[in-house]
C-alpha cells in the first residue's frame, strides 16, 4: 500500500473523501438469495412468459403500481425487491409509455441491491419494431445508471421460440444476489431442447476444469462451482503449484500443474480427467496475463505472449477437448466459458495486445456456439470490468480508485461476482444461453 493509499483509507481520509463527494459505496447483496421485498411483475400485453417463469421458479409476485403521467408519483408504500417487466409483446413506439409508467414508481420504490429485469425480444420485424428493441436497450442502460444503493437493471432478449424453462435460470440469476455486479447488460436466451429446471446445486457430480485457479478470480470460480456441486480440476502453471494445491484441497478437487500454452495442454487435461474415470462437463478458460505498453512500444514478444496465453491456447485446448470420443474430452451437453474483459471489448490505451486477445475471446465463443449446438454444448464468455484482485492491485492507487468508481455501482467487483456469472452460464438449466458475452462490470463507463 502506498502512503497515499494509506492516508486515503484511514478514518480521517475517508471523512475527507466523503466531504469531497466520494461516498462509501453500498454493500451489495450477494449469493443464492432473492431480494428481501416482494417481486413485482408488470406484463405489457398478453404475454404469459414472465408470469410462467416466476411460477416455475416458485416465486410469488405482485401487481405493479402504474403511474398516471402527472406530477404526483404513486408510491409502493413498503419497498419492493424487484421489478420484472415482461415487454415481449411491446412492438410500437407508442407502447413505450406503458414501460415508463411501470418504471417510474419502481425506481423510487426499489430496495437496496434490488433488481429491474426487462424481458424483450431479439431484434426482428419491421423498422418500428427494431427501433423499439433498441429503445429498450437505451432505457435499460439509463435505469441502471439512475438506480442507487446497489440496485441493478438488465434486459433479456427472449427468442419467441424460447419458453419459461429456457428463461428460468437467467431470471433466477438476475433476481439472485449472484448477479450483484451485472448491471445495464443485454443478452439473449434462445430455444433449447432438454432444458432442466433450475436447482440448488446444479453442478452436482459434474467435472469442470478451471484454468488459472491458483489465485484471484480463478480461485473464486473454483470455490463457487464447488459450492454448486462441481468436482473441480484446478489448473495453473507449475510455479503456482503451492497455492493451487491449497485451493484444490479446500474444495476437494484435484490440482493439475500445467502451462496452458504447452502444445499438448488439451491432451494432458483430457488424460487427467480420463485417468480419474470421468467425462468433462465444462471448461472455464480463466488463465490470463497482461503485458501493458503503448502499441508504439509493443514488441513482437509482448504481443505474442499475451495472445498466446489469453486466446490461442484456449482455442487449441477447445479443439482437442471437442474431439469426438476423446476419453476425458467434453461430453455432449457440455459447457465452454471464456473470460474476456471490458477493456478488451472497448479498447484500452496501453493494452492493444490484451484487447486483441480479450475481444478475440468474445469472437471465439460467438463463432463456436452455432457449430456446437448439435452436440448441445454451449459456449459463452464473461467480460469482467474492474475486479479487486492481485492483477488489479498492481495498478497505481489513484488510477485504481478512478477505475473502481467508474461504474454505476461506485465500486470494484469481487472475484465471486465473476464466478457466480460463470456458474450461471455453466448451469445445465442455462441450455438456451449460448454465444453470449455477459459483462460483469457494474455498468462500467468504458465500452459499449
Amino acid at each position, binding site marked *: 500500500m502506498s502512503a497515499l493509499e494509506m492516508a486515503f483509507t484511514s478514518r480521517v481520509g475517508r471523512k475527507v473523501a466523503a466531504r469531497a463527494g466520494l461516498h462509501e459505496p453500498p454493500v451489495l447483496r450477494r449469493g443464492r438469495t432473492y431480494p428481501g421485498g416482494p417481486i413485482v411483475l408488470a406484463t405489457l400485453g398478453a404475454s404469459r412468459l414472465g408470469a410462467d417463469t416466476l411460477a416455475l421458479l416458485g416465486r410469488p409476485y405482485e401487481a405493479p403500481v402504474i403511474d398516471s403521467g402527472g406530477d404526483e408519483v404513486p408510491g409502493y408504500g413498503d419497498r419492493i425487491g424487484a421489478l420484472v417487466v415482461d415487454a415481449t409483446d411491446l412492438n410500437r413506439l407508442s407502447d413505450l409509455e406503458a414501460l415508463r409508467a411501470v418504471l417510474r414508481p419502481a425506481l423510487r420504490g426499489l430496495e437496496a441491491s434490488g433488481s429491474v429485469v426487462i424481458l424483450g425480444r431479439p431484434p426482428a420485424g419491421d423498422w418500428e419494431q427494431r427501433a423499439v428493441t433498441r429503445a429498450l436497450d437505451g432505457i435499460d442502460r439509463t435505469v441502471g445508471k439512475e438506480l442507487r444503493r446497489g440496485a441493478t437493471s438488465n434486459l433479456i432478449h427472449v427468442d419467441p421460440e424460447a419458453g419459461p424453462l429456457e428463461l428460468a435460470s437467467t431470471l433466477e440469476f438476475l433476481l439472485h444476489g449472484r448477479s450483484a455486479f451485472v448491471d445495464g447488460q443485454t443478452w439473449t436466451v434462445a430455444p433449447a431442447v432438454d432444458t432442466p429446471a433450475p436447482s440448488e446445486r446444479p453442478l452436482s457430480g459434474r467435472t469442470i476444469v478451471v484454468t488459472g485457479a491458483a489465485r484471484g478470480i480463478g480461485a473464486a470460480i473454483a470455490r463457487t462451482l464447488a459450492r454448486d456441486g462441481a468436482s473441480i480440476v*484446478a489448473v495453473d502453471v*507449475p510455479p503456482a503449484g503451492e497455492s493451487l*494445491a491449497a485451493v*484444490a484441497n479446500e474444495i*476437494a*478437487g484435484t490440482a493439475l*500443474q500445467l502451462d496452458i500454452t*504447452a502444445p499438448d495442454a488439451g491432451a494432458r487435461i483430457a488424460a487427467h480427467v480420463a485417468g*480419474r474415470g470421468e467425462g468433462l462437463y465444462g471448461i472455464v478458460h480463466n488463465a490470463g496475463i497482461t503485458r501493458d505498453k503503448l502499441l508504439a512500444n509493443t514488441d513482437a514478444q509482448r504481443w505474442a505472449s499475451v495472445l498466446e496465453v489469453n486466446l490461442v491456447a484456449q482455442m487449441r485446448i477447445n479443439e482437442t477437448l471437442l474431439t469426438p470420443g476423446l476419453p476425458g474430452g467434453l461430453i455432449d451437453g457440455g459447457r465452454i466459458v471464456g473470460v474476456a474483459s471490458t477493456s478488451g471489448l472497448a479498447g484500452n490505451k496501453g493494452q492493444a495486445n490484451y484487447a486483441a486477445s480479450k475481444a478475440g475471446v468474445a469472437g471465439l465463443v460467438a463463432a463456436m456456439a452455432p457449430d456446437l449446438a448439435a452436440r448441445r454444448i454451449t459456449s459463452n464468455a464473461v467480460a469482467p470490468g474492474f475486479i479487486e484482485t492481485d492483477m488489479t492491485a498492481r495498478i497505481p492507487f489513484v488510477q485504481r480508485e478512478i477505475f473502481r468508481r467508474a461504474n454505476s455501482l461506485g465500486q470494484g467487483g469481487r472475484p465471486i461476482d465473476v464466478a457466480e456469472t460463470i456458474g450461471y452460464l455453466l448451469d445445465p438449466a442455462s441450455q438456451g444461453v449460448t454465444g453470449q458475452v455477459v459483462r460483469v462490470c457494474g455498468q462500467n463507463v468504458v465500452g459499449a
Partner: protein
Amino acid sequence: MNHTVVVVGGNRTPFAKAGGALREASNHDLMTAAIDGLVARYGLAGTRVGEVAGGAVLKHPHDFNLTREAVLSSALAPETPACDLQQACATGLEATMYLANKIALGQLTHGIAAGADSTSDAPITVSGEMQRTLHAASRARSAQARVKAFSRLRPSHLAPLAPRVEEPRTGLSMGEHQAITGTRWGITREEQDDIALASHRNLAAAWDDGFFDDLVTPFLGLAKDAILRPDTTLEALARLRPVFGGEHGTMTAGNSTALSDGAAAVLLADADWAAEQGLPALARVVDAEVAAVDHPGGADLLLAPVAATGRLLARQGLTIGDIDLIEIHEAFASTVAATLKAWEDADHCRSVGLDGPIGAIDRSRLNVTGSSLAVGHPFAATGARIVPTLAKLLHARGPGSRGLISMCAAGGQGLVAILEAV
C-alpha cells in the same frame, strides 16, 4: 502376496541445501507439504487414507509422532492413522515397502509412504552435565536449591552438541567411510566427477521437459530443486578441493551429496481398488530385499545393497539384464561407482553369499533423470522421491518395463526394490 500393489503417483517439495530456501520449515512442515501436494494431485482431500507411514532421520524429541502429526495438519481426514518408521537413508523406501506389504496382504486398500528431513532445523542437544543440571533445577523446591544446582555448571558444559553425523561405532563420518571404500575399489576422481555431471545434466533436462510437473509441488516460494547446477562442467567440478579422504582424496562437495531440506510422499494402492477409484497406476511393486554388511568388521559401509540386489534378482528369477532402468541412490558418486564395480566383481559377490557376479550395466539406464547429487538428499525423503520417479519413467516405457532401486543406509545397511510398469 495376494493383491497387486501399484504406485499411483507421488509428490515432493523441491529440495534445497541446508540453510537455503526451506530453512524455516521443520520436518513437520515439510512432510505436511509433501502430503498436501499429493492429496491435491489425486483428489484425496477430506478422505480417510488406509495408513500413512513415514519418518525423518534427524528428529527432534517433539517429532516423536511426526507422521501422525503431519497427517493431522494435512488436508486428509483426521481419521487417517499413521506411524513413524526409520531406516536411516532408506526410510522412504522402507516405508513404501511396509505399506506395500500391508496392501499385498489385504490389510489396506491404499496408503501413503513419506519421508522428510530438515538439516537446517537439525536438533542441537546440550551436554550430559547440562541436561542433569536442568533436570535437578526443575526438581528443586526453593530458589536456593535451584541456584545450587546451577552452581555445578562449568563453561564447557554450556557448549551445544551438534548433531552427530558420524557412525557411532567408528567415529568416522559416512564420507570418510566411503573414502576408504573408494580407495579399496580404486575409484578415480574422474569417474566420480562424471557421475556428478551426469546427475546434474539429467536432472536439468528432466526439469526442462516438464517431467516434474506432476511429481513436485512448490513450497515456500521455491518451485525447483535449488541444488541443481544446470550449467556445471567437468572443469568446474575438477577445480573443487577434496573434503574426504585427506588432501589427496578424490571426494569433493561436487561429487558428494549436500546436506538438504525436503520431503517426499508416494501414493500406493491395491491395483483393483485404484481402478475402482479412477486412480492411475504407474507401476507394480514387485519385491524388495534388505541386507547389511559386517560393521564395523567389514570395510565397505555403503555396499550392503550389493548382497540385497543379488538375492532379490535371484528370488525373482531375473538377471540385471532384465532390468530396464536402474536407480542407485547417489550418497556419493564414489558409492555409485563402487557399487557398479562390486556388481561386476565375482569374488566380491561370492564373498557376500551370492552365486556369482551381478554383472555390468549400460550406464544410459542409470539415474536417467538425475539422482541425489543434483537433486539433494533429505535423508528420509530420498526413497519416497525415487519410487514415483522410477514408476513414472517405467510407465512411459510401457507395460512390463522393470526398474531397480538400490539404497545404502547408515549402519552398513542396504535396501533394494523392483518395480514393473503396468
